[in-house]
């Protein structure tokens, strides 16, 4: 989570507020015109104005605005990363895994009863040569 004691140099905080303000303004326009979602566009636009106000009047409200936006976007960032990881898991693991399961994949020798019937679980170890040491795989 964002640490509220985080206090980078004033100049950096102002710059971050300006960048945030511009990005949010562009996002608000995009959402308003392209996605035709005026309410969301207004909310994003308001955040953009808030960031800009923080940039202009940093001595008066800048630090509070900075903290508020950082906490807000910290939460948003976590949410988005959670969604991305979930999507990655779904696309890279769940779907291929289920398909492979349909084809009877069993790389891990998971079937205990089948393993019991084997004489040994040993297999030949892969050989190494001087070139293989240069690879990470």
């Amino acid at each position, binding site marked *: 989570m964002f640490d509220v004691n985080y206090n980078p140099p004033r100049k950096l905080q102002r710059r971050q507020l300006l960048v945030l303000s511009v990005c949010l303004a562009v996002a608000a326009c995009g959402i308003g015109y392209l996605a035709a979602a005026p309410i969301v566009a207004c909310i994003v636009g308001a955040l953009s104005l808030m960031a800009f106000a923080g940039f202009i009047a940093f001595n008066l409200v800048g630090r509070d605005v900075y903290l508020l936006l950082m906490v807000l976007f910290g939460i948003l960032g976590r949410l988005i990363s*959670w969604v991305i*990881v*979930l999507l*990655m*898991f779904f696309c*890279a*693991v*769940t*779907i*291929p*895994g*289920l398909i*492979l*399961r349909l084809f009877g*994949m*069993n*790389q*891990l*020798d*998971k079937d*205990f009863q089948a*393993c*019991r019937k*084997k*004489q*040994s*679980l*040993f*297999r*030949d*170890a*892969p*050989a*190494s040569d*001087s070139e293989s*040491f*240069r*690879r*990470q*795989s």
Partner: protein
Amino acid sequence: MPVYIAGISAFYHDSAACILRDGELIAAAQEERFSRIKGDARFPGHALRYCLSHAGIDGSRLDMVAYYDKPIMTFGRLLQTYLEYPLTSYRSFKVSMPKWVKEKLRIPRIIDENIPGFDGEIVFCRHHESHAASAFFTSPFEEAAIVVVDGVGEWACTSIGAGRGNSLELLKEVRFPHSLGLFYSAMTQYLGFKVNFDEYKVMGLAPYGKPKYVDLLTSEVLDLKSDGSLSLNLEYFDFPQGLKMINGRLGELLGQPEREQGQELTQFHMDVAASVQSITTETMVRLARTARSITGLSKLCMAGGVALNCVANGIIYLEGIFDNMYIQPASGDAGGAVGAALQAWHQVMGKPRHVTGRDGMSSAYLGPSVNNREVIPYLESLGVEFQILAVEDLPESVARWIAQGHIIGFCHGRMEFGPRALGHRSILGDPRDPDNQTRINRKVKFRESFRPFAPALLEEYAADLFDLRIPSPYMLMVMPLKPEWRKAEQENAEKLAMERLHVVRSHVPAVTHVDYSVRIQTVSKSHNDVFHAIVSAFHKLTGCPMIVNTSFNVSEEPIVCDHHDAYWCFAMTDIDILVLDTCVLVKPGVDLNAPVREYPEIVSG
């Protein structure tokens, strides 16, 4: 110009670094000793800096860096495992992926970032090959069979191989998830101890119980083959896809749920520990037999986390499967750094190996040194009273203080590499004192009272006390005490569990476990001159050829590294006397002129 190779193990557990100069291991250390985080898995920056400074070079003089694992192969195994559990592995995926993206898939870049000026080659050794190399290339054998057993490497969990001269080949392996190491860790969790940290507690607890659950475990939970390979019934385990090692089914099978940390240990837990230890020992013995029959070689080298199981090691020796055996003292992941570096020297660079009859670990004294040049100003800055002894007076003084019943914190010379304190970062005591086990456990180390201590024993007396004909300088062998040193066998047999702690079982009760077993460190002049002189002086004073030697730390802390750590450990515990190089600090009220304690019944060596 000499060739320098650094070895690195990191990002799993117990990271470490080492450095070779022209193939000779000159320095090695675990990161935890510097960072003071037990089992620290981060990049071993401090350890590496120490190694470079010991060698007197900077990163630009390094010819090669060897990493102890093949990260992409391990990543492949991880993905493969997730694919096998497409619906239930999300939690593990969520936790592990950021670590892989940030660290484990960026090893070359991380190495470059952490070694300024380095522009040599980076090589990657397979995890079990690193372990095997750490054992064989440092062994005193020209050729030997090799057994590696740990949790898991890239895919291999158990490997058998052979080493000859400067070549090493792994021949057979058992692959993930069928792992003896993971089984032991899973049972460690079931018994309420910390996975990857407290496995040795299970080993220490086992002698209090009876192996009542061996049949149940070997019929339902794992299938042990005659050649030592095994398969796990994954219905009882969560480690392939979850964040825990086991699931609730194991508790249902055994009749009790998983023990919570800190919950009381009952006879049931001791019986489970005994059963797990029994299965482990039997598996290791079978693996050793298989290694002998596959390779036909008469000497054995072992490494991997499970090779730290001294009970199993002792049984393998007693079974007489091999003529001689050598176990890498840093058998866990830390030792992988040494193995990777040696593999780079012998197998990538093709350099020959010279067998000298001594192992190549320099008695494991490979870490930073404590010396009076730094200790004296430090103690003066603290304003504490201390005296400086002449080096030649140190052994006799320390031996006398031990014989007076004092507990000594001994921090002298170079720090040990690996999990054992071997007389340079040790707490020393009198093994004849029946109260010392409880006293040191409770008041010095703040740990469970059931935990046994090990003796440092003069090598020339080992055969008198044990059926041991080979040296055990790294405290990696547990042996039964010979009957003539035992006492109260009847009483000991009649008592239950922890009651046995109070039975005076032998002439050296502080180091005799409840089953009359002893974890032995043999001490010879060639391995450690000063420490040998201390034990010899104690023997001369008392007739007892051993002293208590336990690691200089408190529970949950890494072993002390330097004089700062040692002083604070001394200050916070009931250690009576602290030796820092040759400076001596004494706690108030400790009488250095007390008489030497007499235990007339001691069998004189």
